[in-house]
């Protein structure tokens, strides 16, 4: 007990820098209240707000530069190709008002969602089978390495030739790009199960099947979800590129079409939408990943 109370007078003597660094050093609420006259709740709110401000400062600066730069720093011709932010936002608002943006987002999300789902289902089930049967793994691994290192977009002409320029070829290329992160992470997750847990499970009398369902699969779930998150990111990236090459709708189409129609602010509005969509998908998948690896927090901490 005495070890807790003795440092307090020393800390109280130097209250100056403490409230500022309060965010970085974990301080118990009781210790904090003795050091500052402000209510702890208020101080925490201020500290949180400050931290948010600092974290978003780079983005705010970037947007400000985007707004001011083209107007005051760039030449008139550059300004046409790099319109300031407010023009882009206006163009985006118009696109939303006319319902075009929603249509394009829906088209893109349907394709990437379909391809992504196919990839997740196939990737996990094949990954489990491949990881479970060692000979199959050593047989297929070289081929998988070859495919994995083939850029998905390099295969776009192949898929277009085989499946036409419709939805099938786009969904297929998304599925192809998203498949490998899921597959390889599933394999890795199953193969890196702690051997001690397997020993413990066997000593508890678990047979092969329950060992797989009760020990190997749950311990692989966090690794599998890392794969799913990577797959989600690449599903969107590849789809946009595929839509730029040949499509009648979708965000990739919106961007290239706006460019060739010389609707430059619209083009930037499309790009901005792609960024925000990618960010949103990633946030959702990170949340899912966290949810399913809650029990791993102690290892990561």
């Amino acid at each position, binding site marked *: 007990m005495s070890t807790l109370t003795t440092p307090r007078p020393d800390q109280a003597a130097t209250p100056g820098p403490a409230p500022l660094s309060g965010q970085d050093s974990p301080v118990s609420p009781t210790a904090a209240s003795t050091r500052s006259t402000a209510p702890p709740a208020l101080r925490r709110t201020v500290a949180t707000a400050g931290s948010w401000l600092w974290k978003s400062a780079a983005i705010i600066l970037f947007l400000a530069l985007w707004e001011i730069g083209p107007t005051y720093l760039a030449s008139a011709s550059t300004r046409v190709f790099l319109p300031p932010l407010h023009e882009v936002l206006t163009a985006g608002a118009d696109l939303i008002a006319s319902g075009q943006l929603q249509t394009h987002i829906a088209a893109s999300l349907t394709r990437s969602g379909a391809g992504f789902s196919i990839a997740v289902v196939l990737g996990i089930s094949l990954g489990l089978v491949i990881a479970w049967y060692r000979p199959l793994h050593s047989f297929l691994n070289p081929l998988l390495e070859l495919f994995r290192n083939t850029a998905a977009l390099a295969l776009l002409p192949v898929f277009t030739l085989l499946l036409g320029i419709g939805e099938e070829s786009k969904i297929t290329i998304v599925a192809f790009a998203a498949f490998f992160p899921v597959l390889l992470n599933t394999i890795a997750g199953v193969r890196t199960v702690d*051997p*001690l*847990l397997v*020993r*413990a*499970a*066997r*000593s*508890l*009398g*678990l047979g092969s099947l*329950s060992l797989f369902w*009760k*020990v190997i699969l*749950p*311990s692989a*779930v966090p690794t599998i979800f890392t794969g799913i998150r990577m797959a989600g990111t690449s599903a969107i990236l590849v789809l946009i590129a595929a839509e730029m090459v040949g499509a009648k709708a979708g965000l990739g189409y919106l961007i290239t079409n706006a460019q060739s129609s010389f609707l430059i602010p619209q083009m930037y509005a499309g790009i901005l939408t792609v960024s925000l969509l990618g960010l949103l998908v990633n946030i959702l998948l990170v949340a899912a990943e966290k949810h399913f690896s*809650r*029990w*791993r*927090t*102690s*290892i990561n901490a």
Partner: protein
Amino acid sequence: MNAKISLRHVRQEFAVRPAKGRQSIDSSPLVVLDDFNLDVRQGEFLTIVGPSGSGKTTLLDLLAGLTRPASGQVLVDGREVTGPGHDRAVVFQQYALFPWRTASTNVSIGLEGSGLNRRQRADKAREYLGLVGLSGFADRYPHELSGGMKQRVAIARSLAYEPDILLMDEPFAALDAQTREQLQDELRRIWTETGKTIVFITHGIDEAVYLGQRVAVLSSRPGRLKAIVDVDLGERDNVEDIRSTAQFADHRHKVWTLLRDEVQAAQAAGHRKVLPDGTAPDEAPAPQPTTAQRSAA
């Protein structure tokens, strides 16, 4: 013949693979146990000590049925051990709890598929968590528990399906001294209450003497049974600190003397721990100072 466990001329060997980055030491198989004979009585608390690399963990794996001997017989109740069974339970040094399961479902995992429904299993888990002093922690995940609490959960898990035999592989080695003594006392209490046969592997001489009715001392590799020391500390209940008694010191010294020669021999030969998968990550061609020294000191 009332031996609960019998080991008859047991020999176990591994094809040692050197760990990554090391040159091959020796391609011939490494004999870990050779002509090993031991009987454990029904309801007995037997502790096993031995120098590093003397095959303690190998022995426990054989008893658990996780591995089969190269030759010889491992008998439980006169029947040969062919695999893991519900008559035996293992407690590992590193707890080996399933981190995605709560304390309660960790304890009841061995009961799944035994015909009990979820509620009955939860009741059973609560009962055994209570036995190890963890009532009220049923819904905690392993990462929310301290080392000592984790090991209590592991002990509850091994008791939950009511095995006759408890096999413990240095279960308290990773705990701090106070927690260790506390758990030692609780294990003795559980043993008295349940009448299990316990085989307890340790590298602590004090722990071996304190817990065991008999202490089996293993020789350096290849492991053989060097001696069995009967522990008679008299009436325990009336003694405040049994570890400070002259009887305790006598027994401790006896085991220490038996172990010292073996530790020196193991050290001279550069023996290191061999993992269950046959790798010997610490095995070096040239003998180096070993940590086994500490167990004799």
